């Protein structure tokens, strides 16, 4: 914009108008070569700069150019269809994607949710999920609507009496047996859920360990996990990475199941070598006695514990609640 200011520090509209080449103030003496993205109130000037003018006075040239361009943009905005409201007028910005500036997405694309084992199986067999169950259900016995879940659920099968079966054994409580079965079912389901969670986390992290928390504390763990995964991936070709070219500046190819050889080195100092050999021997001999001490103590402790346990549970058992 033009920056002529009067001595009072206030910009007069008339001053600007007189200074500008066109008295109307919004016409610009140049071809409109701008590319508009009106929805974002943006315009791009792709035309090249006039080198001669630019070299004469850089600051002035850029100022004038941007003033002209802003004027063009504002003119364009005012030419848009206008909607009048109480507070004034609103310009209706165009909503076409063609003129929209492509900008990168802030977040990564959402990935497909991984299937649980059952979902994968159902998809394979074409089993469809039933519609959502209603929350309230009609209870025939109580003649009222009840929740379809929970302790007081509708149509709850209440076993006050159980019919004896031929397979029942004497002394076995069918009620506690049913309870036990239910508990087992719940535990089994818990195990399945855990397994699904682990599997999906493994998949989503592309095998980068089982760390799912990407917080600061886990950063080093994640880093080494990624390194390990990368190393495994590098030797996971048909030739175990034998014929793969190394990248520029890449460290030596990782090898599988190759232990670092320790104990090599100085070949000539026999005295030192024998000393370290004696250490190895000491370790071999001492290990035996150490293990035996542990074993003996453990055996003793285990025996004592067993005796205590037997003493504790040798009492007659309490009668079970019926």
């Amino acid at each position, binding site marked *: 914009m033009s920056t002529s200011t009067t001595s009072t520090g206030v910009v007069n509209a008339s001053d600007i108008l007189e200074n500008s080449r066109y008295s109307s103030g919004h016409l610009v003496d140049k071809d409109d070569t701008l590319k508009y993205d009106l929805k974002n109130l943006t315009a791009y000037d792709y035309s090249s700069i006039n080198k001669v003018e630019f070299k004469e006075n850089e600051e002035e040239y850029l100022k004038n150019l941007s003033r002209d361009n802003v004027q063009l943009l504002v003119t364009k905005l005012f030419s848009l269809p206008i909607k009048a409201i109480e507070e004034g007028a609103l310009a209706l910005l165009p909503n076409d994607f063609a003129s929209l500036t492509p900008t990168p997405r802030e977040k990564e694309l959402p990935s497909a949710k991984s299937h649980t084992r059952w979902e994968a199986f159902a998809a394979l067999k074409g089993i469809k999920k039933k519609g959502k169950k209603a929350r309230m259900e009609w209870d025939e016995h109580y003649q009222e609507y009840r929740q379809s879940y929970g302790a007081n659920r509708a149509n709850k099968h209440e076993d006050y009496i159980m019919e004896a079966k031929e397979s029942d054994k004497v002394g076995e409580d069918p009620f506690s047996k049913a309870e036990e079965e239910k508990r087992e079912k719940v535990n089994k389901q818990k195990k399945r859920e855990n397994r699904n969670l682990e599997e999906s986390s493994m998949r989503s992290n592309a095998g980068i360990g089982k760390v799912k928390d990407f917080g600061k504390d886990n950063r080093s763990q994640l880093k080494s996990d990624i390194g390990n995964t990368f190393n495994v991936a590098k030797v996971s070709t048909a030739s175990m990475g034998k014929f793969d070219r190394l990248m520029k500046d890449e460290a030596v190819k990782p090898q599988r199941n190759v*232990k670092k*050889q*320790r*104990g*090599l*080195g100085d*070949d*000539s100092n*026999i*005295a030192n*070598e*024998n000393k370290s*050999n*004696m250490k*190895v*021997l000491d370790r*071999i*001999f001492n290990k*035996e*006695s150490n293990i*035996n*001490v542990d*074993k*003996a103590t453990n055996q003793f402790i285990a025996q004592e514990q067993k005796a205590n346990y037997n003493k504790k549970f040798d009492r007659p058992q309490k009668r079970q609640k019926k």
Partner: protein
Amino acid sequence: MRKLTDEETKVFFEKIIKYVGKNITLMVERKDEPHCFRVQKNKVYYISEDIMRKAQNIPRDSLASLGTCFGKFTKSGKFKLQITCLEYLAQYAKVPIIFISILSTLLLIYDNIVYTNQFNSSKQYKVWVKPQSEMSWMYGNNLLKAGLGRITEDTPQNQGVVLYSMNDIPIGFGVTAKSTGECRKLDPTALVVYHICDVGEYLRDEDTLF
């Protein structure tokens, strides 16, 4: 020719200990002349420092053999003894136990029950073969009860033993199939010592031994 790695040293020593027990320390720290173990093309050699230093001038590819060959490492990292080490096994199996740490001795006295087994490794066990079975053993067969002349008292099962002829000439080494106690009740055709190596191999495997 190179030193043994830590892993190799452990495997190698554990094998030798089966036959000579704690006397292996006498082999590592020799009073007369310093000796060392060296690997050359998977084979382990026991050599004096003097010869080792001279051999260092020879490139690995050209070095055929040096010192006494004790055996070789398999591809999977196990160690196999060869008959050429019999000289040392026999020698150190004869020496009485010298090296027992004071601590272990005290413990042995105070707590006989727990600590009796641990000294298997510190004892040396020997078997003497009757003259009529010597040849059979030297052809590579296992030793039967019929050929058993004498055996060290309290030899446990699966223990490495050095075999001698009745006039104390070492003729090989093996692993006991039965303990001394069990041997007494066995019939003459039962196995007593499994064959590992015998002096006949000097003739049979002459070209690969050294």
